[in-house]
């Protein structure tokens, strides 16, 4: 379909007292693309409305192919294949996209589409939607559900689905994404190549310079310039748009316009990268989550192993204590009794023996046996403090400490909480062993003269054992691993017992130069 020749002569439009357009005269040849620019309210849309029959002009004439036309409604302009795309497209919200695209221009038969041919219309609309990268399914979506950009594309598709001789595009690019803007610009050039005339408005001079043959500038309702695009520069056009001759005013505006469009383009690209970034972030996030999940599984398994290990250790310790108890009882009930009975036999034999020589000998043996018995008793006491079962921790510690002090000749002061009470057997034994090992350590390594032992309940209901000496003190920081490598197990076994009871052990220097061993054990049964 060939384009039409348009001529507007002295067009004016007044709304009441307000003059929107005055004395517009211009021509458009078939296949020509005209850019219409001007500030907001300069009359761009009003001019397009006059040309498309939405408004009747107040004065002036419009000629199409040298024939005077007088439009009283858009349908008359459309009969001449003059189509307008509005700045804000008005669609019938309740109808779907395909009905909106062909509303008033249905394809069908017999005369002027009395019976619509929806298959043909669907095919034609689908190619346009595909051109703008939209799914064909959109054709059956209600217009009221569309976002702005898609509404604009539907309005554009209305025009592209028709054979058009004159296209009036009122800022069609603003709502479109960067990529679709480019498609539409290509399409406009293509239509012009087929002979259709195009008048397009817009703010982006870069776009207009890319596709137009001429540029018309409106300023406050008047046509102030009609330039060939090739013969003008954006700067010149902007000067006329803002109506200012002075450089100082124009430069910032050009700068602002350019940076505005650059910013728009960048925003579009940013949106793209953001989308891709979000996708990769999501992938990474899910990977991280898997890793964390696996780590948690492993930590849990480790925890379980640890608990099992501790339980095994505790059982081992308990069994060892049982073994010791058993051994102590064996020694006490069997060996010591046997020795004592031998002693009595020897005493009888001694009384029966006449010679004092023999008597002396026997007496010496008997004193030797008594010595052995006493040592065995001592051994039994160490293996299993007899007092701990019957009289409790306090008595056991007291008797052990007394005995230790006597044996080693080291002064020992005791400070035991009178309200210590009874504790579970495992704890009492462990505490006793800790005290025992601690005193052992002092005897072996400290060379102390004065030792202070303190066992008491703390306000938080745990048990505090504090052993202070005035010996050599620590020459170097303690390293339990190194100690155990040299087969010094004393402190190690204390720390193991403390750990099993869930307590804490501290070793530090005493004010007097010795060592302070402090053990804190949480009580499973708080004192009442």
């Amino acid at each position, binding site marked *: 379909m060939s384009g039409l020749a348009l001529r507007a002569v002295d067009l004016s439009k007044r709304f009441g007292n307000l003059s929107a357009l005055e004395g517009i005269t211009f021509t458009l040849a078939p296949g020509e693309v005209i850019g219409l620019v001007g500030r907001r309210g300069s009359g761009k849309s009003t001019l397009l409305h006059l040309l498309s029959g939405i408004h009747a002009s107040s004065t002036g004439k419009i000629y199409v192919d040298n024939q005077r036309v007088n439009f009283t409604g858009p*349908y008359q*302009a459309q009969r001449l294949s003059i189509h307008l795309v509005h700045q804000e497209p*008005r669609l019938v919200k*309740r109808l779907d996209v395909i009905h909106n695209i062909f*509303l*008033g221009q249905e394809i069908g038969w017999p005369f*002027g589409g009395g*019976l*619509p041919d929806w298959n043909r219309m669907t095919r034609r609309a689908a190619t346009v939607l595909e051109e703008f990268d939209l799914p064909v399914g959109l054709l059956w*979506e209600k217009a009221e559900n569309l976002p702005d950009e898609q509404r604009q594309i539907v309005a554009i598709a209305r025009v592209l689905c028709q054979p058009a001789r004159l296209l009036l595009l009122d800022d069609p690019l603003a709502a479109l994404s960067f990529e679709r803007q480019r498609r539409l610009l290509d399409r406009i050039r293509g239509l012009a190549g087929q002979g259709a005339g195009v008048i397009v408005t817009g703010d982006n001079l870069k776009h207009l310079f890319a596709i137009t043959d001429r540029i018309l500038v409106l300023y406050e309702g008047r046509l102030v310039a009609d330039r060939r695009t090739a013969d003008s520069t954006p700067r010149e056009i902007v000067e006329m748009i803002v109506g200012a001759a002075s450089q100082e005013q124009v430069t910032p505006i050009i700068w602002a316009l350019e940076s505005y469009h650059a910013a728009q383009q960048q925003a579009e690209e940013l949106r793209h990268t953001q989308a891709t970034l979000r996708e990769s972030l999501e992938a990474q996030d899910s990977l991280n989550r898997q890793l964390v999940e696996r780590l948690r599984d492993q930590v849990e398994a480790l925890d379980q192993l640890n608990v099992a290990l501790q339980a095994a250790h505790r059982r081992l310790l308990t069994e060892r204590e049982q073994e010791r108890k058993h051994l102590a009882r064996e020694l006490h009930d069997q060996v010591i009794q046997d020795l004592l009975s031998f002693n009595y036999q020897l005493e009888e034999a001694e009384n029966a023996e006449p010679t004092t020589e023999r008597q002396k000998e026997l007496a010496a043996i008997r004193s030797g046996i008594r010595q052995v018995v006493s040592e065995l008793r001592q051994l039994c006491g160490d293996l299993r403090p007899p007092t701990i079962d019957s009289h409790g921790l306090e008595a056991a510690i007291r008797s052990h400490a007394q005995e230790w002090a006597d044996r080693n000749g080291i002064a020992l002061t005791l400070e035991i909480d009178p309200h210590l009470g009874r504790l579970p057997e495992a704890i009492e034994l462990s505490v006793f062993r800790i005290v025992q090992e601690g005193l052992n350590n002092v005897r072996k390594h400290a060379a102390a003269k004065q030792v202070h032992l303190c066992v008491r309940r703390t306000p938080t209901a745990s048990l505090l054992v504090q052993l202070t000496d005035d010996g050599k003190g620590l020459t170097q920081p303690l390293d339990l691993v190194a100690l155990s490598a040299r087969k010094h197990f004393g402190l190690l076994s204390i720390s193991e017992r403390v750990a099993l009871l869930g307590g804490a052990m501290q070793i530090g220097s005493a004010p007097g130069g010795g060592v302070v061993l402090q053990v804190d054990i949480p009580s499973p049964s708080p004192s009442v």
Partner: protein
Amino acid sequence: MRALSASHSKPSWPGVWQAVVRRQEFGIAVILLALTIILSLQTSTFLTGTNLFNVMRASSWIAIAAFGEAIVIIAGGIDLSVGSVMALAGLVSALTLLAGWGAPLAICAGLATGVAVGFINGVFVSRGKLPSFIVTLGTLSAARGLAFGLTGGAPVRNLPDNFVHLGQSNLPLGNWEVPLPAIAMLAFAGLTALLLSRTVLGGHIYALGSDETAVWLAGINVERLKITVYTLSGVLAAAGGVLMTARLGVAAPTAAVGYELDIIAAAMVGGVSWLGGKGTVWGALLGAMTMQVLRNGLVLSGFPTYWQATAIGVIIIAAIALDRWRAGHS
């Protein structure tokens, strides 16, 4: 977009059922069915073939006029002149018959009356940009006055037999004797439904009722469209009027007084939205029949005559309220 492609997949049975339930006509069809069941349980005479055909015959001219009214309401207007047009068209047919015209010509004259009144309505509404309510209120009065003026207030009797047969004869179809008006009603319903749902004009009428400005901007000649809509309403009302005259055998200038309200009620009870853009001819048909069944049932069950109008009013409001409620929940 995924949801979109899914909605175009093969219809499943629950989907079809939902589509049926969501249709505007569903509510009124259920009410009509319920009324039929209640009345056939209460009275032994209701659910006989004869009585059902009587109901259809009695509702036929109201229904045919309601089809035209539905078109106007869907297009976003209202036509109050339908009752007067029915009377005037019947009268013109009767007068031309007595003047010696043949029945087909006389019927055409009656229909032409409807075209004329409808055209006048359309011109004033579109060109004159007047509210349809005011314009058609004027033609309601004008057409009624014309009817009185043409006859001097007296009814026209003694119509030829071949004309009267149209309204009173039955067409034997198998075991049934189907009244001609019932057949005419179904034929008009089918034609109007095809017009609305299958033609470009029908699509434009729905679009006009949805958004007149958008339709105007889309390059549709809205004036011509409105004139077409009111002319269709006029011609359908005239067809109803001619049928009514043939059935009654007499054309009175006082005929069909107040029918416009019954006709509007039939369309709205049938789910034609008074806001425009929504509704179907089948809904209007069901609406007209429901109202007739109600009247018929109230008479058969001995409901006090004076209270019948009240009962019908209550049921109309209930039906429309139900439709609103359904629209709010879909």
